[in-house]
């Protein structure tokens, strides 16, 4: 059986303590800058906060993973190198990287610290994953959310590193690590600035009938009826009119969350080493609820008991959930 480590999100020091106390095996977090893909206002850690977080986590047997999972634009790589230097000095257990240049710097400078390949790298074939392992010493790959469980099982047989899969949270697929939709409207890059739909460009407008429009950079990307559940204001989950669908439809993705709680035994059997919970931008309440639920489920499965899966629908985007491609390629 695989280790089935539970990898949990933290956007603030308080959320990190919550995740650790709720049973995380490892917590991932980032600095307050463009070096990670949740570079949101008021979120993330200063170096001093990260030092305290490392101490808190290690004192309780929990690992701390530092996300450096964005792509440095030309001439700005020093920010990523400095973040790696700071993380190494503070004693993080692993770096989560996407860019080959960042991976190369860490592999050469800090060969004793584990490298995990971020989902942002979009490595989904054994050949691509082996390339990262052979050239940068990557120890774990976070797989894109586009693979079925049989495909994951096959990949596991052909790669020399551990596998981590998302099990809960945001289900924004596209071509992971290469999504540029936000750039078209805001000029800011998900991949290089770490912001998808920057809050400064988002506006919610309530209409007289109780409907609500979500706008990004002045463009309406969805309109919800008075009783309709909402999602994040991202272009990939916007609703658009097209000649063949004049009523408007979700052209790319729907507001929906991934929830693989019922597939955990199959994922473990397929050789998945670690389960990732998405949501560094979410609250302590989310972290506490989701981590506790999956801690209990994983412990039950490892003990040979049937997992008592908690109902997490209230925490999902649009209050809808899916098993996505993990169940079938035809999930839409």
């Amino acid at each position, binding site marked *: 059986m695989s280790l089935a480590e539970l990898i949990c999100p933290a956007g*603030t020091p*308080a959320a990190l303590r919550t995740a650790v106390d709720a049973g995380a095996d490892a917590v991932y977090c980032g600095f307050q800058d463009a070096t990670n893909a949740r570079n949101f206002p*008021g979120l993330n850690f200063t170096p001093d906060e990260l030092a305290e977080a490392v101490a808190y986590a290690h004192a309780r047997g929990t690992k701390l993973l530092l996300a450096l999972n964005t792509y440095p634009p030309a001439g700005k790589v020093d920010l990523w190198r400095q973040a790696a230097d700071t993380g190494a000095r503070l004693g993080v257990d692993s770096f989560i990287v996407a860019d080959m240049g960042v991976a190369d710097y860490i592999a050469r400078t800090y060969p004793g610290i584990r490298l995990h390949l971020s989902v942002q790298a979009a490595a989904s074939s054994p050949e691509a994953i082996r390339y990262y392992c052979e050239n940068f010493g990557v120890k774990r790959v976070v797989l894109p959310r586009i693979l079925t469980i049989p495909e994951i099982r096959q990949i596991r047989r052909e790669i020399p590193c551990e596998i981590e899969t998302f099990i809960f949270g945001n289900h924004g697929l596209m071509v992971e690590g290469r999504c540029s939709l936000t750039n078209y409207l805001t000029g800011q890059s998900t991949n290089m600035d770490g912001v998808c739909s920057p809050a400064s460009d988002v*506006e*919610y407008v*309530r209409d007289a009938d109780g409907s609500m429009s979500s706008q990004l950079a002045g463009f309406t990307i969805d309109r919800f009826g008075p009783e309709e559940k909402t999602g994040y204001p991202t272009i990939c989950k916007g609703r658009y009119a097209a000649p063949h669908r004049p009523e408007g439809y979700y052209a790319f993705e729907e507001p929906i969350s991934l929830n693989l709680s019922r597939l955990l035994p199959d994922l473990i059997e397929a050789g998945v080493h670690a389960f990732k919970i998405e949501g560094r931008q979410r*609250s302590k309440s989310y972290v506490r609820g989701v981590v506790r639920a999956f801690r209990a489920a994983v412990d039950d499965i490892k003990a040979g008991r049937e997992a008592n899966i*908690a109902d997490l629908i*209230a925490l999902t985007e649009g209050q809808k959930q899916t098993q996505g491609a993990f169940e079938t390629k035809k999930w839409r």
Partner: protein
Amino acid sequence: MTPTSESTVRLRPGEGAIARLACLVLQPALTRVVRRVAARHPSLFARLGPHQTTDFLIDPVELPFALHLRPDPQALVFRAVPRESAPQAGATIRGRFLLLLELIDAEQDGDAAFFSRDLEVSGDTEAVVRLRNALDDMDGSLAEEASAMFGAPGRAVLARLRRAYPDATKPREYA
């Protein structure tokens, strides 16, 4: 700041007078609470960044008044205001009172409340996100802390509030 247009606020007979009286009664307590929180949780101001001087309107929909917050550490403002004279805020957060309180205390998740339409935000979204993240990084319960400042009467008021909203005050276990 300019007052909210009266045309957007519909008052029932006598509601305006009740709101003004409630605001007068509450104001000393609100001032004490916000000063205490600021003194005990100075790190929250860093997460607010440039929005320390933003005017937030926190609008508990079932109460006869709203709350005006300007989290400027040099000149803190936290006051109850009748809706008809509420300031034009940079950002507005609207929901049931206990939901708002539980969001501050991290008993509820803000994104989930937004997805379910129980929480509405308008105005400067970045300001709202920063305030949410700043408050979420506070340990402990702000409601407990504030009520404890007023001794047994304060705790009694909180207990009574929670009895009035039994479902909204349970820590959500999602199980």
